[in-house]
């Protein structure tokens, strides 16, 4: 059984995570368009992954540019809601000592399906709008060859 003090510390740590994420997005905003590409899929294959654009969308939304944020990742409000849900779940679990009685497996399965369905739809649009050219230009081998030339 955890002591009340230990629980309070854990609760404080968990409570700070979502505000810390929002603060990070707010302060990273000036650098978000010039920062490095961290997505391995984009770096290696030149393809967008399901999360590509999410950092930019969150940074823009943290400054109130909600419409522009939508153009970078149309599902960012849903993902924000999901993160908020996870945050609330952990807070309740830490507070009570037991997780809330929710069908977590089913929720996770639906969320995973949503992520991959979005990715499939994104790839369809990507290739329909000339993504093959982008892929040929932005993959790692093409980048290295350009760098060597």
């Amino acid at each position: 059984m955890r002591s009340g003090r230990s629980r309070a510390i854990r609760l404080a740590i968990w409570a700070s995570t979502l505000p810390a994420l929002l603060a990070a997005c707010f302060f990273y905003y000036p650098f978000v368009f010039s920062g490095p590409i961290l997505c391995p899929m984009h770096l290696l294959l030149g393809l967008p992954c399901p999360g590509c654009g999410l950092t930019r969308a969150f940074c823009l939304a943290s400054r109130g540019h909600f419409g522009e944020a939508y153009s970078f990742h149309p599902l960012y409000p849903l993902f924000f809601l999901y993160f908020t849900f996870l945050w609330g779940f952990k807070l309740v679990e830490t507070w009570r000592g037991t997780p809330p009685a929710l069908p977590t497996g089913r929720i996770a399965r639906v969320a995973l399906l949503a992520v991959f369905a979005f990715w499939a739809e994104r790839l369809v649009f990507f290739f329909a709008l000339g993504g093959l050219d982008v892929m040929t230009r932005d993959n790692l081998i093409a980048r290295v060859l350009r760098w060597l030339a």
Partner: protein
Amino acid sequence: MADAAAAPAAPSSGGGVKGKVENPTTVLILGLVTCGLYTIYWLWVRVKEMNDYLGKQAVNPMFVVPGCLCFPVVLYADYLYIWAIPEMQQKAGVEAKDEKVLHLVLMLLLPYVGSYMVQQRLNEIWQK
């Protein structure tokens, strides 16, 4: 899809339902080829196996989903998973080495290599 992939083999001697033995090299290569997406799917399946084996929700699968969206969240899932491996080893009667920090650092810096090493440990448990 996770249910099909994690189809149980047989009840083990020590714990609950045994998981599937996978080739660690395949896990490594598929992780590299798919730029990490397979590693997220792999973790999803392994979490389900672990929860079935231990008979409790050691890792909440909801924290695995944002693997390709928010790295710190999946790192938390990795942490929970890696910290529960000794319990599985104990249950299976396999000698438990303290490699938790090594595995977590690898999952953070080189997730493909981390999943390769974790799969090796899991195979030891399932083959016991």
